[in-house]
């Protein structure tokens, strides 16, 4: 009846690949496509697209001349300033408090403060000076708020204070200058101001770091971070010495603005702290490079920079105590790190 009759052989051949096999094949193709899709990853960014200064952070073992001998944990939020008084006591300030510690780090007194001081200094008579961004707050040796000095203006950012028997010197990073005050708060003169008449561009302070320190002879030194160095001034503001070391070598100061903190040992050694490549170094009195006191590796351990986006520089202040130990105020670790020579007597200082 039918013009076409099915050939049983043909039928058998068509069935040589069974239906279930087709189904498995189809599933395999879909799975493979999905797998390829899921595992398809763009190339990772190569060297040309990533900023990396790790090779400049590396320090030759022989250049490391100090080691950490003590770590003083601070009951203080957001530490910001550190000072050593003439009796060797340590003063640390931060959010809402000023702590007095003995030289072993034991807390002796705690003063509540309104706000977060940027810096602290204590005069030989015990008077405490706190930098409160646009003015200084003065406290008696018993911690009583004595007075506030006049504001230094909207742009002011007090970053360091040093006191001697005659004067109080205050670094103001916001206005890129240092003020010389009498002990009762009268401004006598400024140091490092831009002065076109004397063809002086003044301090170059791109970020909120400007530091002052006395050397062992009582001479005033100021960091000039935008010039990558330090300068010595007479109290009346006359420039005596400028020493600038821009560069990425270990004995130089890298980036736009370093050093961020300075201090002096009793033998005239300059101690510097940097940001970007977080590091503490020493330079002998003739300014020859004497070694690294704290490496980046050491200072970057134990905390996560991503948790401190607003202030990524861990070194919040630097000081030298009456035993010539180097004290590093570490913000994220909320501690004072104490460094001493590895091999006393063999320093290059």
């Amino acid at each position, binding site marked *: 009846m039918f013009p076409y009759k099915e050939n049983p052989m043909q039928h058998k051949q068509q069935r040589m690949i069974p239906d279930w096999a087709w189904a498995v094949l189809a599933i395999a193709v879909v799975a493979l496509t999905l797998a390829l899709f899921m595992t398809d990853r*763009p190339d990772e*960014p190569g060297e040309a*697209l*990533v*900023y990396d200064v790790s090779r400049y952070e590396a320090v030759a073992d022989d250049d490391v001349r100090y080691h950490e001998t003590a770590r003083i944990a601070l009951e203080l939020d957001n530490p910001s300033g550190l000072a050593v008084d003439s009796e060797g006591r340590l003063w640390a300030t931060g959010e809402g408090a000023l702590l007095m510690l003995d030289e072993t780090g034991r807390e002796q007194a705690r003063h509540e403060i309104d706000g977060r001081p940027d810096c602290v200094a204590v005069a030989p008579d015990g008077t405490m000076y706190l930098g409160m961004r646009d003015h200084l707050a003065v406290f008696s040796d018993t911690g009583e708020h004595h007075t506030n000095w006049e504001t230094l203006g909207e742009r002011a950012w007090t970053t360091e204070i040093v006191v001697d028997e005659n004067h109080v010197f205050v670094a103001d990073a916001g206005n890129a200058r240092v003020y010389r005050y009498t002990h009762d708060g009268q401004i006598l003169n400024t140091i490092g101001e831009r002065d076109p008449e004397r063809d002086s561009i003044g301090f170059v302070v791109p970020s909120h770091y400007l530091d002052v320190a006395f050397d062992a002879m009582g001479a005033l030194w100021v960091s000039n971070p*935008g010039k990558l160095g330090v300068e010595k001034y007479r109290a009346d503001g006359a420039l005596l010495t400028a020493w600038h070391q821009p560069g*990425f070598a270990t004995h130089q100061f*890298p980036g*736009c603005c370093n050093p961020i903190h300075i201090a002096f040992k009793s033998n005239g050694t300059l101690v510097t702290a940097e*940001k970007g490549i977080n590091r503490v170094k020493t330079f002998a009195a003739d300014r020859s490079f004497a070694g690294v006191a704290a490496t980046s590796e050491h200072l970057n351990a134990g905390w996560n920079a991503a948790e401190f986006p607003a202030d990524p520089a861990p070194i919040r202040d630097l000081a030298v105590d009456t035993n010539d130990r180097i004290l590093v105020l570490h913000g994220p670790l909320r501690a004072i790190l104490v460094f001493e020579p590895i091999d006393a007597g063999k320093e290059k200082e």
Partner: protein
Amino acid sequence: MSTETKPGRREFIRAAAVAALGGGVWMAASPSAEKWVWQIDPHKCTQCGRCATHCVLNPSAVKCVHATKICGYCDLCSGYLQPAAPALDTGAENELCPTAAITRRFVEEPYFAYSIDEDLCIGCGKCVKGCGQFGNGSLYLQIKRDLCAHCNECAIARDCPSNAIERIPLSRAYVLKYDENAGEGA
């Protein structure tokens, strides 16, 4: 009792249905139904480089933005110059940006102003990291709304190691770099 309960329940169900429908309509018309956009939180970004390589667009919809208020106008700008650049000039060997997208203009001794050529920028973040590491962090990466394809799942967000990319309502874009001392940036 039962005759009273039944209509009450029915009314309740009806009211609930109306409320649900009304809520849906209200939600559709309300501001919360506004467009959502992908944005980078500049404070979380760690400049891993993936914004340049992982965007479905080429070049990336991520660009460098400059918060000039925070900028230090540095001569030795670490977002502009290679680390250890042998000279402080605009020679290609001294420039950090792989596409020469950053230009600088002299302001006064020793200050320079920096600007980004968006067409050249590929969003690698090299300059951002250099600026943040040594300087004030005034450069930052952001997804440009006008360039972004608004993918359902941002291909960069999927692989961002810092979870810095999130979807936010259009009204909150752009997420700017904020400096507690200088205020809002660019």
